[in-house]
């Protein structure tokens, strides 16, 4: 029972990490069709934001809470800059966006290396996330619980924005049928920018959260980008609920196989499972019903 509980928790927390890093991508890749390889570097930018905030704000107790919105804004602004300078010219050419954004990612990594230095930085965790709370005989690390809660909040906020706000309706309309949305007076340019801002901002938030688990270095993003795309593809491109199911599913599978076998073998099995799954359901867990003519 203990071991089972531990694995469920580990799986859910790994799933929450996957969810955080993939959430922004469901918007930019899923809704807009932009293959943004620089998404990982936006995550990295979020992590460095947490580092800078921890230097500026003397109180470690508060710095994380300040870093979260700051990371959102920094990630979002980077996304806006990328959209305005490069991506707006390439919406019809998804493969070109892949190459261009990969290049942008490399540039951002080098910028981080030049500004902050190659060695990893430590972002001190606030005291209130120190240690763990025992539930049913298992010690739950507070940092992991925090990430699960944060992932939940981000999903809830995103769902609320998409469902209840004018912007959300415009985003959904643009995804459903871009041309028709324009004919009823929606500025799809503005909607694209807003979507990209939110998607990239969520990457920044993920970066801040990741400082609680790992190191903050220029290569931070590269270790997460593949997993992020994997989650989005498995979940069904452009489908928020699918992303949630996929993230938790992959996290749990990984945790159980890692417990029963070893970490490396677990990764191989999960990859194989994903390949097999996509053979049966290439559209992912859920698929979007668009009303576009193409």
């Amino acid at each position, binding site marked *: 029972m203990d071991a089972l509980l531990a*694995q469920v928790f580990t799986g859910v927390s790994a799933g929450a990490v996957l969810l955080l890093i993939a959430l922004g991508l469901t918007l930019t890749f899923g809704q807009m069709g932009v293959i943004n390889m620089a998404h990982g570097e936006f995550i990295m930018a979020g992590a460095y934001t947490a580092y800078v905030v921890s230097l500026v704000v003397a109180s470690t107790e508060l710095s994380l809470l300040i870093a979260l919105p700051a990371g959102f804004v920094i990630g979002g602004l980077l996304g806006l800059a990328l959209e305005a300078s490069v991506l707006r010219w390439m919406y019809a050419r998804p493969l070109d966006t892949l190459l261009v954004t990969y290049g942008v990612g490399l540039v951002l990594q080098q910028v981080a290396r030049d500004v902050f230095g190659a060695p990893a930085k*430590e972002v001190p965790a606030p005291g209130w996330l120190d240690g*763990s709370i025992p539930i049913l005989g298992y*010690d739950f690390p507070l940092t992991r619980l925090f990430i699960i809660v944060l992932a939940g909040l981000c999903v809830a906020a995103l769902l609320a924005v998409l469902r209840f706000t004018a912007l959300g309706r415009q985003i959904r309309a643009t995804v459903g049928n871009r041309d028709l949305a324009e004919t009823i007076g929606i500025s799809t340019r503005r909607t694209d920018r807003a979507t990209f801002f939110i998607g990239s901002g969520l990457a920044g938030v993920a970066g801040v959260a990741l400082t609680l688990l*790992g*190191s903050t270095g220029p*290569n931070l993003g590269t270790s997460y980008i593949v997993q992020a795309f994997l989650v989005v593809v498995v979940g069904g491109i452009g489908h928020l609920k699918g992303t949630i199911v996929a993230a938790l599913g992959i996290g749990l599978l990984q945790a159980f196989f890692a417990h029963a076998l*070893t970490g490396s073998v677990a990764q191989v099995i999960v990859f194989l499972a994903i390949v097999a799954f996509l053979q049966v359901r290439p559209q992912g867990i859920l698929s979007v019903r668009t009303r576009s003519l193409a």
Partner: protein
Amino acid sequence: MRTKFSSRILAASSVLALGLTATACGGAKTGDSATGESCVDTSGDTVKIGFLNSLSGTMAISETTVFKSLSMAAEEINADGGVLGKKLEIVSEDGQSEPTVFAEKATKLIQDDCVAAVFGGWTSSSRKAMLPVFEGNDALLFYPVQYEGLESSHNIFYTGATTNQQIIPALDFLKQEKKIESIFLVGSDYVFPRTANKIIKQYAAANGIEVLGEEYQPLGSTDFGTVVDKVKAAGADAVFNTLNGDSNVAFFKEYKGKGLTASAMPVLSVSIAEEEVPGVGVGNLEGQYTAWNYYQTIDSPANKEFVTAFKAANGAKAVTSDPMEAAYTSLYLWKGMVEKADSFAVEDVIDAADGVTYDAPEGTVEVDGENHHIAKTALIGQVNSEGLIDTVWSSDKPIEPDPYLKSYDWWKN
């Protein structure tokens, strides 16, 4: 559209063809120099040496510091009159964290730049990729990092520790000082941890230590929830950690988060030096053990000089670590060999190598002419509250290198 596309292909393939011819020509030319005598030019008042470190890519974080300490040694030697009266001229190449690039750049340094010796490499895969290049061209490589042993090339000098100078002393420490009866092995999934753990398991079997678990995570993995759960459930007396790079950060954060401490279940790491401590976080590492042959805190005149000079060149916050010291030492050892041989020729230098000593920051080291490693003192350290590492146990005298573990009767390859 179609014509445009095919004309592009045509253009691309002609560029490619041109490139191929160019390399073919280059290959022919360099082939000549490889079959002939070495092209090292010692007629002037300078001599070229090559530094080959990853200044970009994932290993840049570690190898840049090695490059800095090599550069410092070269400047010191030049300020002191050079080697055999010749100033050192540095040719630096970037290995880009790619073994194939290391092999390519090594070839360039040897055949095009005609350097007298090359210093660098970090990962075992980069060394394995360069080995045939150095053997094929009969050139010299000085490799400065502790590694998994079981190798001894005629053309390579290994100035970092081999396993009997780092891993076996670390096990001796755990057995004698910590009186451990069981151990848990955690490592990254590649050649060094797998080989190290093979040695550890045979040592454990011969010394009555129970191995309670052996876990590998892919290189760069940051998900240690399950691994730490297993470590905790096993309840071993100590953990032997051969994780590399960023994984250490995630592992130690998880370790502390799940309530495990250095006093209850110490972790002994073989890949965490002064440089890596701030990244992992002093709070997560304080009290944990490391096994190396050099620490910044070593109290000796040679080390004080080394640390002061390094900080003067790289800022007061710069720290010195084992691989940096081994790289710095390697340049001085080469100087000693060249001066003993009174020649820059590779075979003369190799013949003269045996018994060359140098008063390194870590203490006096001596080259073993047979296996090309150096005798080093093993030091077990403990991370202190300032993020530096204090020596808590030492092998007292330099340990003779034994890369194939021939002197250990429990070892069966």
